[in-house]
């Protein structure tokens, strides 16, 4: 008895050590990833001279000055009054929103078909779908450029350029959406569908009434992830968006010109870029967790 207690005490101490180490690592990672964002957000509501007040090394009291300032929102208002960022935000919303919705609607049907596995050569087909994501984006840029030119999507017109962007984003979101949602569909027992058919549903009705609601967490998570991908995209937008359909990241980069660097505007628009995605990120977490506990479907 005494011996097992000894052993368990040692084991406990060991576990506590590793646990502490783990927490330290997590804390360090947390600071590493969030501090830049925090500094960006804080600086975006400071006057530039406050923002550039960097304390000396070892001056801990000086560090406090980082949060002692009188907030101002003029960087934000400038973005809208001087730079017309409302257009760029709208472009970003339209391009990433439409692309995500079309990727997820097409992708959910494909994913469901693949998950039910009644297609000959289904394995190869899935792999091919995934393989389209293996090449780096720049590799497809030239062929896409030539295709889009042929389709007239690169003419200086806002809607044509936006359509081009939506097409490009959908192309890149679709394989991801298919693979991501496929596993959600696979987790739904086929008996549920069969039960629905026996109960009086057509194939489509069974999909709509039973499968879709059950796969909803996966679908929403896929939608949000696609949204984040396309919202954050710079390279497609800078090439296919042209001047007429500039998105938020492209517009932000243009605040840095040969004559001046609009630090205030960059910080503010950076914050505008990050904040909505942060909330979507939290949302996706909720849905992913829900999706994982969906295993409970397997009664």
């Amino acid at each position: 008895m005494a011996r097992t207690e000894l052993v368990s005490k040692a084991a406990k101490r060991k576990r506590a050590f590793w646990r502490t180490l783990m927490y330290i690592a997590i804390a360090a990672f947390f600071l590493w990833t969030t501090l830049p964002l925090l500094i960006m957000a804080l600086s975006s509501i400071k006057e530039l001279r406050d923002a550039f007040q960097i304390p000396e090394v070892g001056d801990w009291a000086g560090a406090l000055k980082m949060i002692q300032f009188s907030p101002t929102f003029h960087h934000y208002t400038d973005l809208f009054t001087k730079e017309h960022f409302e257009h760029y935000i709208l472009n970003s919303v339209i391009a990433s929103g439409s692309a995500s919705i079309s990727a997820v609607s097409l992708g959910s049907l494909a994913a469901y078909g693949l998950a039910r596995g009644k297609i000959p050569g289904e394995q190869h087909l899935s792999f091919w779908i995934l393989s389209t994501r293996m090449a780096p984006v720049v590799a497809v840029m030239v062929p896409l450029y030539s295709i889009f030119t042929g389709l007239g999507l690169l003419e200086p017109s806002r809607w044509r350029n936006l359509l081009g962007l939506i097409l490009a984003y959908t192309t890149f979101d679709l394989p991801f959406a298919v693979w991501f949602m496929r596993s959600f569909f696979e987790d739904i027992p086929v008996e549920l569908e069969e039960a629905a058919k026996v109960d009086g549903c057509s194939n489509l009705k069974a999909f709509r009434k039973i499968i879709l609601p059950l796969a909803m967490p996966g679908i929403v998570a896929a939608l949000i992830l696609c949204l984040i991908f396309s919202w954050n995209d710079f390279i497609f937008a800078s090439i296919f968006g042209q001047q007429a359909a500039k998105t938020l990241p492209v517009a932000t980069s243009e605040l840095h010109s040969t004559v001046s660097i609009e630090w205030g505007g960059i910080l503010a628009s950076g914050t505008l870029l990050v904040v909505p995605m942060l909330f979507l990120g939290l949302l996706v977490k909720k849905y992913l967790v829900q999706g994982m506990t969906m295993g409970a479907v397997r009664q």
Partner: protein
Amino acid sequence: MAKVTLNHVWKRYGKIEAVIDLSAECKDREFFCLLGPSGCGKSSTLRMIAGLEEISEGEILIGDTVVNKVEPKDRDIAMVFESYALYPHKTVYANMAFPLRVGKRSYTNSEIKDRVHKAAKILEISEFLDRYPKQLSGGQRQRVAIGRAIVREPLVFLMDEPISHLDAKLRTHMRGELKHLQKVLNHTMIYVTHDQLEAMSMADRIAIMNLGILQQLGTPDEIFNQPVNQFVAGFVGDPPMNFIDCTLEASGDNWQLTNDSFKISMSPELIAKFKGKNGDLSSGPMEVVLGVRPENFIITNEKGNEESFPGEVYVTEPLGEDMIVDVTIPKNKLKLKTSVDLDIRMGDKVWLEAMKNKIHLFNRKTQQAYF
């Protein structure tokens, strides 16, 4: 309510033949059991009736309609699945109301409510109507699954091992409940199971399948007392029938079953039955298999008569009222069922005698039964 007819039905999955030339008819309002070991094709058969599997060859009729090309939703059937297949995102009420909402016939909300409550009352699940499936126990889920089937009045009920996941006590209870329910609803029911006890206790008629082939179709009594072959004889009954290889030889009118341990003479009645099944000894003695059910042995401590044969008790398993006794005779180990009062122990020498009016005889090559 309708009869279900299968005409020369085949099911092939690639090269594998799951159901081979199956012809059978489930009568109107009958409790019809498809019984067999796993992989015998019984579930495939049920799924073809439901329309969840394509029929490779042959035809299936529900009532007088050929349903080969009819979608499951248009077949007017209700099915209970082995895994219950309750919709996890719907409450018990919504699960049970679902077939009424999506089916061909339209019901008003008050009709739906009435039907669900009525079914819930029959199944004693009224208090769970607002819960979700994951908040229910296995037995409760199973009753919800049955409830979802009985809210409608389908032509046929199909049940795919609906109680095989319940614990033993609940299973025994549900056997009675299901049989009662079928009689009360007075509907045609096709029930798939691998458990011979379920089939024997509930069915009006049983179709026993093995390796995709229908072995025998008959009432539980026929299946038990007149098995057509060794498979059926061995599959039904617990413990299963004892099979003893022996030789059947004739010297004039005196026909005898012999083996290293015993000599059993056959009565004129049995000889007639043997001959009735084209049994022929004209070309000399014949290799046969004697089948005796565990309860059809007389077990004594002393040699009873000429045909008694000795054995040694290998083990005894008292089961309260009955006792299963394993007895070894040369080349064979037999299972016997006796009263627990019998005073025998491991290692005892006992004398056995088969009840001659209860024995079965099989052709050793074809495994077909003579009687």
